């Protein structure tokens, strides 16, 4: 990883989407142990995965990880906190009028 250069990696991954009454969730797991760092971008390839209501869909896919440059990573670590209020839930969207 360079200060200004971005590495691009391919990683096999398993995507799990649950569109069920008792659990609505979606997760991506990298099967080669790849670890995501601040500022990295991830793109899972292939068509959109849609789980019909009542089902869990698990698919093995290929993902591209766009590694942030060292500078970008540092920047994300320093500035990411600004958006931390996103973690709070307030029941409503921020739109003033709907």
């Amino acid at each position, binding site marked *: 990883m360079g200060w200004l250069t971005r590495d691009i990696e391919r990683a096999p991954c398993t995507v799990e989407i649950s569109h069920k009454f008792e*659990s609505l*969730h979606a997760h991506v797991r990298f099967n080669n142990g790849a670890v995501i760092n601040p500022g990295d971008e*991830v793109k899972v390839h292939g068509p959109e995965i849609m789980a019909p209501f009542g089902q869990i869909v698990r698919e093995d896919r290929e993902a591209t990880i766009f590694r942030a440059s060292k500078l970008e990573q540092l920047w994300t670590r320093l500035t990411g*906190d600004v958006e931390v209020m996103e973690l709070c839930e307030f029941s409503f969207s921020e739109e003033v009028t*709907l």
Partner: protein
Amino acid sequence: MNMPLKHSADATTAEEGLAIQEEQAKFDSKSATDLAMQNTLLTPRFYTTDFDEMDAIDVSSVRDDWDELIDEMVSDPNKGHFKKNADWDQVDWEGMDPALRKEFIDFLISSCTAEFSGCVLYKEMKRRGTNKDITQLFQLMARDEARHAGFINDALREAGVAVNLGFLTQKKKYTYFRPKFIYYATYLSEKIGYARYITIFRHLQAHPEHRFHPIFKWFEEWCNDEFRHGEAFALLLKTDPKLTSGGNVLWIKFFLTAVYATMFVRDHQRPAFHKALGVDPDWYAHEVFTKTSELSKQIFPITIDIDHPRWQPTLRRLHKANVAIAEAKGQSGLAARLRQATNSARAALAFVSLYTIPAKKHAVPATTRLEPAY
């Protein structure tokens, strides 16, 4: 005809749950794609944090309280609660006032996204950690959040809104939050969530004629999950006294002020929702702040002085500035840009004014754990 299927909300193990889910899926002929539904793409955010720091947390100083809380979560008191039963009355979506319908759907979608993002965040922490105490906690919380999201999703389906989980195949960027900010923000979010839900639940117990949707009947047990999550974060904060002393008290004050102010502004933007519930948003805000402050004394050495003469009028100014910014954003021209800038400055000043109201100090009790009592 087959035997009625067991609901997987009643499953005791993940394996049993999956088996029931797979069985059930065979009988579910109505896939979301078959129905002409409004499609809403969920847009959760993706985060990273210092997972090593989080993994190094040692809960031995709060071991007894910790084990008791985890045991309670493992016993899963809300298993089977989040499904429709006879209490789920028919909703007259067609006859609902359009303004209320819009605001209520905004409520459902925002709540669903929040539960969903919580699930993604907790699951990620579970996956990246090796510390058994921490990974178990996050796994249990992810379970609850996914359950809540599924429950809201069902209410949305009934309203003709299908949630689209296709976001995973879009390119997404991972941002970074420091662990302590995650603790402050999520602790407060869980506790204020409890206070918000229980206040509405108690109000509707006294005024059932205002209950325009059955989902509110589930708020009591629902907010007990939020309460337990908040307890877990309080214990995490307790393991390191530095997190609630010294310069960090200024951060705590910042989070308290920001969370209260954001809630006030957002609630006041949804007048039809509150009118239908028969709730005055000013009264509601004061109730929720009072309860949250009382609860947060368990771990925070300060609370916001919400009865200070500057508090309420400044919140109103902040709300007004926020409305003016949005109006100006919707217009073009130099005058609109100028109005946007002026009102942004007004909003910032209002926030500073709120932040500089002297906080109330108090001693933090030796034992942290609380029980839901409202």
